[in-house]
């Protein structure tokens, strides 16, 4: 699974710390999500998508296989 968190964050000029504060996780979690080393839970994915006013599918890209 890949995601567009870094892209969306940079487009809106939001820092990792600001995003982390908004979705109530640590900055390290945002770093790991952006680098693809960690997959968010459904709850966190929902919070992040809602923060960017997008759907989960628009932020998180599921790859078959």
């Amino acid at each position, binding site marked *: 699974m890949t995601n567009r968190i870094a892209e969306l964050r940079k487009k809106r000029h939001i820092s990792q710390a600001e995003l982390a504060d908004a979705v109530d*996780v*640590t900055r*390290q*979690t945002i770093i790991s999500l952006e680098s693809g080393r960690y997959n968010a*839970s459904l*709850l966190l994915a929902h919070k992040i998508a809602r923060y960017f006013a997008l759907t989960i599918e628009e932020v998180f890209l599921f790859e078959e296989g």
Partner: protein
Amino acid sequence: MKKRGKPSKWQWVYALGFIIAGLLPLLLPFFPERFGDRLISLALPAGTAMLLCTALDWKKFENLPWEAQARLDREDQDERNLMLRDRAAWLCWRGEEVLFAAGLGIAYCMDLLVPKILYPIFLLVLLRLTVYRLVRWWLNRKF
């Protein structure tokens, strides 16, 4: 160095559990004397020390500014941190199993496994497996 967060309820429970265990021989007259003396000298100081450390941690946390408290709480509940904690515990458990099996193998090869040693080890393994199965069953029902 990373600051410690608010003590969990389990830290209080452990400390009080040790203190109660240490007080049991004093409260129950039928307690075996030799076992009781050892329990008092071990569990009571350990429980008191744990209680003091937990109280100090709690006091330290209470004295922190609101922002620092919120940050520590977040670090404690962060889903990635929880995942890391679970995985670390699981890996350590598997490692313990390997070390335990290796130790048993070495003891067997050196002819050290006399029934007096083997029986408590067997009981310990059985107890551990039973507790593991019970906890899994309980978690399976819960989730």
